[in-house]
């Protein structure tokens, strides 16, 4: 008896979302098993996550704060992956964006007292630009020299890490500590809690403007992919580069452009984190957002709005996961989720056929000539 995979000729609409959700459920189950195996308490851990992430409005707000950088980096990855460009460098692009935005404040490039309405957009531009440059490097290397973008973008993640460390331990260090001084108020992204005097219910809610950036970016990306010529080209290249070439599309240019936009989005995420949450540049500014973004993008099948949903879920995981022992659990769960998603993907693309041995009318001997 053999098990065969046969390509599906036609996939029902509901199969893909179902397998995606199923994959997540299975992954959580498997992770629970592993957790139990190493001596943890999965039930308590999961309940804690659910509570710590969605328990009340304040906590929900925190979840969305954690989700914000994920949305933007998730979109960055989703865009690149749509075109089969493996941008593994979202982490580095995020860091560069954080640095770029900080540079506006800390360099300083604007005179003190400049109102927020100038500072914030300046930070946004700087952040996106820095991230874009970091995306440009692997992009042009791939377009011009055919260099594997996975390795180049990944290596740049490490370079970015040390770049930040240089500035944070060196020129911008506050009193010799591993962080810069705090940004002035004009460089803070507005948060709901800032208007608490007018709306008391918002008191303590730290959701900031970055979340809006994320939603806006998701909408714009959806629009780009489905309603514009550029988006059509991206989808076509991603599905069949040979057909795209035949259709007259300049693939090299597309690679560079998409990598730059992807980098810029991740850079914006960095800016939003630095401007909306931490208000300074510091060493461990990202708990791996850029890497989680990869899984989010995949989970969302590269769809912008699905990225938002997935980001919220993962935001919950990161938020609550900080308190879970052992500390590697969220990372492990992410790996299991990705594997489950892949397995689910296989189920969607193929049908499983079980062959029984076929009866034959001839006696089963193999003779030699």
């Amino acid at each position, binding site marked *: 008896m*053999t098990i065969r*995979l046969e390509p599906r000729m036609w996939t029902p609409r509901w199969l893909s979302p179902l397998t995606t959700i199923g994959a997540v459920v299975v992954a959580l189950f498997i992770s629970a098993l*592993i957790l139990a195996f*190493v001596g943890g308490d999965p039930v308590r851990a999961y309940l804690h996550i659910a509570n710590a992430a969605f328990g009340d409005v304040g906590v929900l707000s925190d979840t969305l704060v954690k989700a914000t950088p994920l949305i933007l980096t998730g979109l960055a990855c989703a865009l690149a992956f749509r075109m089969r460009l*493996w941008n*593994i460098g979202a982490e580095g692009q995020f860091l560069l964006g954080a640095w770029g935005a900080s540079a506006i404040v800390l360099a300083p490039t604007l005179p003190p007292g400049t109102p927020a309405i100038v500072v914030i957009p300046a930070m946004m531009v700087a952040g996106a630009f820095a991230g874009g440059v970091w995306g440009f490097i692997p992009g042009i*290397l791939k377009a011009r*020299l*055919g*260099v*594997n973008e*996975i*390795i*180049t973008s*990944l*290596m*740049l993640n*490490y*370079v970015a890490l*040390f*770049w930040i*460390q*240089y500035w944070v*331990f*060196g*020129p911008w*260090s506050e009193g010799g500590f591993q962080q810069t001084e705090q940004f002035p108020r004009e460089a803070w992204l507005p948060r709901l809690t800032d208007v608490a005097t007018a709306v008391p219910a918002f008191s303590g809610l730290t959701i900031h403007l970055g979340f809006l950036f994320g939603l806006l970016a998701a909408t714009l990306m959806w629009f780009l992919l489905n309603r514009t010529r550029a988006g059509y080209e991206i989808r076509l290249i991603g599905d069949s580069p040979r057909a795209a070439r035949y259709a007259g599309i300049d693939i090299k240019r597309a690679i560079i452009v998409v990598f730059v936009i992807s980098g810029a989005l991740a850079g914006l995420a960095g800016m939003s984190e630095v401007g909306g949450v931490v208000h300074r540049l510091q060493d461990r500014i990202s708990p791996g957002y850029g*890497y989680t973004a*990869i*899984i989010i993008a*995949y989970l969302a099948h590269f769809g912008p709005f699905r990225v938002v949903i997935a980001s919220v879920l993962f935001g919950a995981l990161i938020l609550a996961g900080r308190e879970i*022992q*052992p*500390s*590697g*659990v*969220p*990372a*492990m*769960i*992410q*790996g*299991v989720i*990705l*594997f489950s998603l*892949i*397995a689910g*993907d*296989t189920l969607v*693309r*193929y049908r499983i056929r079980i062959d029984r041995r*076929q009866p034959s009318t001839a006696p089963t001997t193999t003779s030699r000539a």
Partner: protein
Amino acid sequence: MDFQLVLAAGVGTGTVLLFAAVGEIFAERSGVLNLGVEGMMLIGAVAGFSTVVATGNPWVALVVAMVAGGVLSLLHGVFAIHLRADQVVSGLALTFLGAGLARVLGEGLSGAGATSQLPRLTVPVLSEVPLLGPIFLTNQSVLVYVGYALVPVAWFWIEKTRPGLHLRAVGQNPSAADAQGIDVYGSRYAYVLVGGLLAGLAGATITLAIQPGWFSDQTVGGRGWIAVGLVIFAQWSPIRAAFGAFLFGAISRFILDIQGVDAILGFTNPFQAGRSATFFLEMLPYLLVIVVVVIGSREALRKRLGAPAALGIPYVRGERGA
């Protein structure tokens, strides 16, 4: 700063990259891209270290580490070979899983005290040979000598034996190999496993020989990815991979040791530990990987050789009766 000592230490560091790179060469030559090297190395490192802490026997720890790496690689194998998944994504998933799992398993290990390491050897007579002797053959971990042996064996296997011919065929044109009765699936599983065993070995080399101790993700610190880059630079040749690995090893050691020096050529050392300029030094290996990969790609473009033709493409057999 004693250059000879630096280079000698670099050989040890390079051996880690060597094992991982050669392992990945085997896997990729059979047509399977396994990007999970970092994850497998971490698992090997933590498995090796925790075993030696628990049992005090580094040899057993070595075996456990290799098995751990191998088991993890088979997971990727199933997804890549049987489920025909996108090998890039599956490899990344393996990295996440391996890293997370290693962190979970390594909980509490960083406090472990001194552990027994694998023995170090000095080759008699030959270690007196000027220049090469003191660097390559003096007081090196036994694993380093294993590494020396691995390179020619790997080369010979691939180029000069029948199974090696089959390996090359499977990676270049699996349907031709299949038509000739070669078990494509089986070969690929076998070589992915070899890659996993060697990656586990690489991780164990760190925690049992070169840099004993468990420092969570930092234990491997991206070296798995450097190994993947080295494979491209090596143009899938074990000998070139060895060259690249030792070169990187030397550079890594140099970067580490220069931070301890007060002055270079009479000038104050800007890279002395504690000064912020050291961070630029730390960037160097990673930037170098980019350079090296660019070189490898340009060469591949020029010679129109490059990767095994079927690399990363799942093999689908036409319908069979059996």
